[in-house]
């Protein structure tokens, strides 16, 4: 075998051996030494995110936005997307920012995040579901049903939503916002009648609030679930099922303008 080959392979090996040793030493030094310098946080959105062709839809909210209870996993947002895609030739981009179990105070936090703001800024349409977790607290609200409590919860909720809508309107004055109202999943139960009253009041106040802002549309769903509520509910008797979501999606779809 050629001696030169052996020699050169050996030289290359030695080189890499030393190089990796340097890397190793550096890794240890960097891990333990080295002062961290402050990394500036980007709070401002410098360049206005470039507007691309196509339709950008942003969905924020709770488990309804996620589609919990729909075995196909679409939720009303997914069904609505399908309908929009059928009707338009534009590219449709969906950003689903819904978080299961989210309450209005949490949404208030979320909406102030830089990236979420940026998403909202570029949106052509914004879908909001909110309030279910504030009011029902996973069914708990039904057991500890007190009118004064609910009045307080409702006031807080409306304050939060007011803030959220203001935020949305400042970052994006153009997009249509659809605020999906509450239905009463408990209407078949004993206290259902009383609960329905609460939900109606809640929805009324929400509609009033939405009306105070330009291009924010309150979408009622209460009536959809009023008769035969169990046909449209998932087995947890709280979230809509596939059929329930379809009802909501169709209602929103009928409001779309092009």
């Amino acid at each position, binding site marked *: 075998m050629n001696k030169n080959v052996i020699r050169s392979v050996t030289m*290359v090996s030695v080189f*890499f051996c030393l190089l990796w040793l340097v890397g190793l030493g550096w890794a*240890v030094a960097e891990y333990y030494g080295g002062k961290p310098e402050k990394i500036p946080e980007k709070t401002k959105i410098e360049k206005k995110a470039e507007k691309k062709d196509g339709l950008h839809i942003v969905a924020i909210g709770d488990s309804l936005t996620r589609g919990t209870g729909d075995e196909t996993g679409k939720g009303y947002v997914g069904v609505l997307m399908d309908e929009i895609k059928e009707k338009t030739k534009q590219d449709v*981009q969906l950003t689903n920012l819904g978080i299961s179990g989210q309450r209005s105070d949490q949404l208030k936090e979320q909406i102030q995040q830089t990236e979420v703001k940026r998403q909202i800024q570029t949106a052509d349409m914004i879908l909001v579901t909110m309030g279910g977790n504030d009011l029902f607290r996973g069914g708990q609200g039904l057991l500890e049903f007190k009118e004064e409590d609910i009045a307080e919860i409702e006031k807080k909720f409306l304050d939060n939503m007011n803030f959220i809508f203001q935020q949305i309107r400042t970052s994006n004055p153009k997009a249509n916002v659809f605020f999906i109202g509450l239905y009463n999943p408990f209407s078949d139960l004993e206290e259902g009648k009383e609960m329905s009253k609460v939900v109606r009041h809640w929805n009324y106040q929400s509609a009033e609030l939405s009306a105070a802002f330009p291009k924010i549309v309150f979408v009622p769903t209460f009536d959809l679930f009023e008769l035969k509520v169990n046909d449209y509910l998932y087995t947890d008797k709280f979230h809509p099922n596939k059929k329930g979501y379809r009802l909501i999606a169709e209602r929103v779809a009928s409001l779309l303008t092009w």
Partner: protein
Amino acid sequence: MNKLIQNEMMKLIAKKRLIVIAIIIGILVAMFTYAQFKEVERQREKLGTDDWRTMIQQTIIDQQNRISSARISDEWKQQLQIALQQNQYYLDHDINPSEPGAPTFMRIFLENSIELFIPLMVMVIASDIVSSEHSQGSIKLLLTRPVKRWKVLLSKYITLAFAISLIVAIAGILSYGISGLVFGYKGWGAPVLTGFSVTDAGLDTAGVKLINQWQFLLMDFGLVWFVAIVVGTLSFMLSVLIRSTAAGMGVMLAALISGAILSNMVSSWESAKYFFMVNLKLTNYMNGNPPPIEGMTLSFSMLVLLVWWAIGLFVSFLVFTKKDVY
């Protein structure tokens, strides 16, 4: 000594093992590149955009939803929490954690192969470097020369160290070269965050530093090399102890695979952290992934590995100089 090393290098090159290893790495890298490419394409299709901020935001939302689901274990929840905080940190500082390009691919490839793949490649060379002399009968020729036995073994060990350095280099060069065809060759200067530390309370971002990708890569390479050397030394020891190459390889393979499995399930068995195989994922300390067992740090893992390395080396030399060859 020089002559001995030269002799060993000649054997190494003549065996063409390095070429086989290079081919294996090449094929795997090509596969991973394609998989990664498909994944990016799928995501783009699903989200309708290739804006990394949108993608991370979606990941964060997904993680939040998984955390809020009641059905996952506390540990898993904590891991998700840490990953989420890290993503949020990247997003808040407007830094793309996976800047597209070959250097990023290389980084991810290294981080994923440090535990099993690179050690396996090292084993291919290390496990028969001594035992093959037995099976071929050439050990007698080697030992009848007027050279001390420890010198013979040392020359073999040094050759092994060279070979390992080459394997790590081959992995780097091939992953860069092949993935660059698809992702482009740029991205050495991309910013990378390091210095996340995982505490009981979650992710601590107080010590986070911003460095260039090439710096991070060099560190990763150093850590990979260190792990490879330790694994190589242990295989080397087995190669001295066990005459059958296959048996030695089997033992090492079992250890490595058990390590990969153990790291996923030992968090309650604390003393498992003294095994070398659960300490192999050193790169995790650099990028802030939680260690398999609470309380493990870079220096701890390196110390454990060093102890195993020293024992391996000591046993190899002791046995090789003492044992009867017939």
